[in-house]
């Protein structure tokens, strides 16, 4: 047996050396560097630890803005992130979060019905960059991780072909475009930039502006919300990525997060970031009850607070606060984050000094 392993090892070592040579030439030609993993183990202790942390998917990522919160904050929410990954993320930062820190857990309308990430699912490759240790990534595809991060020189052949292919695809699509397309596109970009710079202004960290917005919701046509609503409703009800069969697993994962928070002596708070009323109307009337509330009822919450902002019609009805039917835009995030902060202060999670919003009169 030893003889066989030695012979195999010799062949593999020679192949590795040749591959390393090929890879060195390839990277030298195209000036590429290795993408080695940044963090293999959980993050080390720091002196100035985090006071408040947000977890969740893109709803929380886009919707919670800590800019005007006093204290050190940490955003661990990310696109398509299920509870299982929230927990992995928390574990990764365990040593950097203060005892008594507030952990905001977003129980979004899709959190419980979201498909469980399995080995080989694309989502996990998002975390190969070191945000989560490979030892914490749930159901990690070990082979994929090793070949892309630990032994990247073994795939230069593939990378070369991919690069060549992408270059040609880009060339083809550029050649196919007519000159007037560029003119139109450039104008559109300019317009978008102008629009976004007028929408998201510093004014929205002013409490008076926030209050005015809530009292007089902006009335803009919400056709884009309706289009987005149809897309989302179909996605949540009819695609393989979502289903009631995932309730139990996701519920268990939420339970693990809550238990872990208590174990670490943090203060978890459950929230639901607002989605537009257009979306809530498009979903079946019992959607929130079946997909969110019933799951929360079945979870042992240990009496922790739950702030459901989908019931705040001042927020949900204001189409000007939403980027699409289920995501707040920058302005919406500023408004919602203020309301969330006030709620956290009122319930004693944060001190009054945590509020850094601008209370000066808008018009002097």
């Amino acid at each position: 047996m030893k003889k066989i392993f030695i012979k195999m090892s010799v062949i593999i070592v020679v192949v590795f050396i040749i591959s390393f040579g090929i890879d060195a030439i390839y990277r030298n030609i195209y000036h590429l560097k290795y993408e080695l993993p940044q963090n293999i183990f959980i993050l080390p202790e720091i002196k100035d630890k985090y006071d408040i942390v947000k977890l969740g998917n893109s709803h929380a990522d886009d919707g919670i803005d800590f800019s005007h919160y006093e204290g050190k904050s940490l955003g661990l929410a990310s696109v398509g992130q299920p509870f299982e990954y929230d927990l992995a993320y928390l574990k990764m930062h365990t040593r950097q979060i203060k005892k008594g820190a507030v952990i905001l857990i977003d129980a979004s309308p899709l959190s419980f019905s979201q498909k469980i990430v399995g080995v080989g699912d694309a989502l996990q490759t998002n975390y190969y960059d070191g945000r989560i240790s490979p030892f914490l990534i749930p159901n990690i595809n070990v082979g994929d991780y090793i070949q892309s991060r630990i032994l990247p020189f073994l795939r230069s052949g593939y990378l070369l072909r991919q690069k060549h292919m992408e270059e040609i695809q880009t060339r083809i699509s550029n050649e196919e475009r007519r000159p007037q397309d560029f003119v139109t596109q450039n104008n559109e970009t300019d317009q978008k930039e102008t629009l976004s710079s007028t929408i998201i202004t510093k004014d929205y960290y002013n409490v008076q502006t926030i209050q005015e917005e809530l009292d007089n919701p902006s009335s803009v046509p919400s056709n884009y919300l309706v289009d987005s609503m149809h897309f989302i409703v179909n996605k949540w009800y009819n695609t393989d990525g979502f289903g009631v069969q995932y309730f139990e697993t996701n519920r268990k994962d939420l339970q693990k997060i809550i238990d872990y928070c208590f174990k670490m002596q943090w203060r978890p708070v459950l929230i639901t970031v607002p989605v537009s009323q257009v979306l809530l109307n498009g979903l079946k009337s019992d959607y929130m009850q079946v997909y969110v509330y019933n799951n929360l009822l079945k979870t042992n919450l240990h009496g922790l607070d739950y702030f459901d902002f989908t019931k705040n019609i001042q927020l949900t009805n204001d189409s000007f606060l939403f980027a699409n039917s289920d995501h707040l835009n920058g302005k919406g995030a500023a408004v919602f984050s203020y309301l969330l902060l006030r709620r956290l202060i009122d319930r004693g999670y944060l001190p009054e000094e945590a509020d850094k919003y601008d209370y000066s009169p808008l018009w002097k």
Partner: protein
Amino acid sequence: MLFNTFSFFLFFITVFVLYWKSPNKFQWVILLLASLYFYGSWIPAYLGLIVVTTIINYFAAIVIYRSKLYKKQILFFTIFIDLGILFLYKYLNFFSFSFGEILLNINWKIALPQFKLLLPIGISFYTFQVVGYLVDVYRGSLKPEKHLGYFALFLCFFPQLMSGPIERGKELLPQLKKIHSFEYSQIISGLKLFTIGLFKKMVIADNLAVVVDRVFGSLPTYKGLSLIITVILFTWQIYTDFSGYTDMARGVAKMLGFNLVENFNAPYLATSVRDFWQRWHISLSRWFRDYLYIPLGGNRGGFWRTCMNVMIVFTLCGLWHGASWTFVVWGAFHGLMMAIERLVGKITKLQVPTVIKIIYTYSMVSISWIFFRSQNLSDAVYILRYAFVGFKSFMSVHYILATLSQLFVTNKVEMVIVVILLAIAIFLEIVPRISLSNFVSKQPTIIRYSLYVLLVLMIIQLRDANIKQFIYVRF
């Protein structure tokens, strides 16, 4: 756990060391535990299914052997259960949907249920294997296995669990009981076989799949020669994919001291469709011949009866591959071609050169693969309808260049790789494996090892970054 994954690599190294380091009398225990782990690593709940199948068939075979009065009834009842499980998981939704469509066409709106059942891996293969075993016991050509452990291992032996080869009881069971000793030459031979299989799958099949998947993914944008080239590429993709899998399965078994049956014998050199089925998926053809074709009467009932039997067998063979009309048509097409060949053979004694026969068989088989690969019948019809559009221009250099440019998105690197790989696939088909093996083994050590290094280097550098499933695993 697929053979071409890193997890299998780790799994097999562990099993290999444990197996050869443990005392002989415990080797089967290691293999059984490894096989159950291998199966359970996919969906643990489905382990119950294979355990239930094992227990039912274990006792049924013993009862069939001992019983004098109800042999046949017990046999049919057990086969009914085995095929019933297969039907439930593989065909229920297909028939429910098809029946619903028929009812809808006659304006009878009944919503027939569709079930969310995942197809258990290898179910078609181990069900056929166990049915063959039961029939052998019933016929008296095999004594039932009394050791439950050996029997369980016969059913779930991991090298052949996913996609065969479909083994016979009298071939595999004695090997399971035999004391295996570590033989260097056999291990090396298995390792070479596994590596060649890995090369076929990860280098040839997966690279050809890049082009094939692209074309089949957007069929309406392709016409003429590009469709023909794609079908040709698919013929080699499926062959290298499945024969690659079989080589790996046989290689793994060989490294553990077992010899599994050969499943392929240069099928694209067949001189008739009938000959093709004696060279392609041999273990399945053999199963259909012994357990369906012959019981139906074989060729003993005259010409037309024989043709009908062939049609029945191959239509069912198509259905065995997948719960879709495309597979049914694929199987029926093969049956029809064989019936036509018999008819032609009966009425004429025409002497046709072997090369022409090979070209004819390859063309017929290629046409049948269109149905096999297409998502639905309308896609297959599209290819058949548009493949020969612009036939007159097929010899024009400009047309050929334009076609290649479209197929490979003007990517010359991809094109060169595909051409080289296709040439290697054809070379491996034409040159008999034994001659190749003998040629390599006669070379000086340095050349031999250089060839091994080149093979492994190509696997590592030319493989696709994403692991692709074997085509036959979904059956």
